[in-house]
């Protein structure tokens, strides 16, 4: 434990009950990480569709909703298993408390997943005409309403903004954890979505045009750069409160969190920045894929540290 003891007073706890350790652990890290992928691919797909012809990214129309669907289900599954009363999750819908960002987020994320599912059905039915056989009513219906896809897309992009940022509001409402009480968290969530979204799409962009891939490399590079810069400023200049400073001391002082944090920073931010930069210049798919995988791993590690360290401080 780290405390700002005033040495002269020599105050020391001599009898107390055991206090809580980490309450929100790696399950919540997976939750945030998967959500970044699920929303990030939507942002990136919109950007790519705006910049390039559909033909230069032949599988994007179906693979984007597939990735988003899987990632969002992982996100919801991990949200569910972290609840101590999982069956009561239904209470969020039957007894919503609207001041809670957990409630607002759950509703928005559910709506978002619903829309992604529609895109998935249409995208897959269009891309694989033989899927489900001739008599499959579902794929016939999806194909018939193919134009809905393009109509939904703008709403989905718009909705992806609050879905990706509401975790920052949950963190802001978690007033016991001073480190998270930063407006920068909202931006950090957005950068994480750009990072994770571009990384996930890079992994499936083998058949795309060079230009489209270059754009992905560009977004990844920019996102890791700004995200890194923000983490570093929090890390080195966090004078906002004694609690935040004491929290960061868990990383500054060495130990397990220091190793995890800097491993995450190196793998997820520093290396992908240079790999991404070189991929913008020359189209090297292997290097770019490596950058994408490293970015996803590093993002997870850094988010994990940021989630856990404020929970190490004694609150009372």
């Amino acid at each position, binding site marked *: 434990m780290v405390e700002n*003891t005033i040495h002269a007073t*020599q105050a020391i706890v001599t009898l*107390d009950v*055991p*206090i809580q350790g980490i309450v929100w652990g790696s399950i919540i890290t997976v939750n945030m990480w998967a959500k970044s992928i699920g929303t990030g691919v939507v942002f990136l797909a919109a950007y790519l569709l705006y910049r390039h012809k559909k033909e230069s990214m032949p599988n994007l129309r179906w693979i984007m909703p597939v990735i988003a669907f899987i990632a969002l289900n992982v996100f919801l599954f991990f949200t569910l298993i972290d609840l101590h009363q999982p069956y009561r999750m239904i209470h969020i819908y039957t007894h919503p408390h609207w001041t*809670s960002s957990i409630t607002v987020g759950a509703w928005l994320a559910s709506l978002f997943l619903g829309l992604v599912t529609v895109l998935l059905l249409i995208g897959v039915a269009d891309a694989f005409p033989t899927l489900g056989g001739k008599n499959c009513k579902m794929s016939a219906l999806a194909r018939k309403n193919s134009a809905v896809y393009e109509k939904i897309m703008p709403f989905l992009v718009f909705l992806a903004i609050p879905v990706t940022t509401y975790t920052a509001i949950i963190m802001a409402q978690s007033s*016991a*954890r001073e480190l998270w009480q930063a407006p920068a968290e909202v931006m950090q969530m957005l950068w994480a979505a750009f990072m994770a979204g571009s990384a996930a799409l890079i992994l499936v962009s083998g058949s795309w045009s060079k230009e489209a891939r270059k754009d992905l490399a560009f977004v990844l590079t920019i996102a890791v750069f700004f995200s890194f810069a923000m983490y570093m400023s929090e890390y080195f200049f966090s004078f906002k409160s004694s609690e935040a400073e004491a929290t960061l001391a868990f990383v500054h002082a060495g130990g397990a969190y220091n190793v995890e944090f800097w491993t995450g920073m190196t793998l997820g931010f520093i290396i992908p920045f240079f790999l991404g930069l070189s991929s913008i210049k020359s189209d090297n798919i292997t290097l770019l894929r490596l950058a994408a995988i490293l970015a996803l791993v590093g993002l997870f590690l850094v988010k994990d540290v940021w989630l856990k360290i404020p929970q190490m401080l004694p609150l009372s």
Partner: protein
Amino acid sequence: MKLGFLVDLSLCMGCKGCEIACKVENEVPLSSWRLRVKYIDIGVFPETKRSFTPLRCNHCESAPCERICPVSALHYLENGIVNIDSSRCIGCAGCMMACPYGAIYMDPETNTADKCTYCAHRIESGMMPACVVVCPVEANIFGDIEDDNSHISRYIMEHKGAVQVRKPEKHTSPTHFYVGGGNQTLNPLAHQRLEGFSLFNNITHLEHVGDQHHSILDRFLAPFAGHAKLNNDNFTAMQENVETHSKEGGH
């Protein structure tokens, strides 16, 4: 009517009577506390003194726990009490993240959040909270802080500038006050909490949240398969971790 608490730390003698009374009254399971009395030793021998600080929920007027609760399991009563409805709670632990005073725990028997309720059930039937009744030196003062003639209001008026709340910078407006305390006792960052250095027990951190004897899968199966009956032995198992803690730091 707004109910509030005041603890005169200069009267408290650290007998832990309130801690026990609270446990008994509210059937608080082992490894959980609604109220605890913390001992802090201050100074260097021979200039030393020991302070005792009872800590419970502050029933904040602007309670972050109530705000973050997604299902209103945490809610205000008309008398200002921040109450909890455990049958509504989904066990998300959002409130544990939000309460700046660590006043909420995940009940290991019910797997729902719980905390001090100012003994709302006793208040309803015209009784005082259990911890107030039991205090032999009347260090716990409870009453209506909106009534100028109540004991607590008069106590606050008498002690004026000496009345403190915990972490005022969190803007939670606690209705729980202290007299006779200082930064060393009320600010958790102003005293050291060394692993493995404590009277009577060496455990400073719980390594589980809620029911430690059932896995995540059990949470899903419990309504169908039922849980094995929990008893005190289940919770004393945490003693096993004593050694790891003392190895990690402390003396």
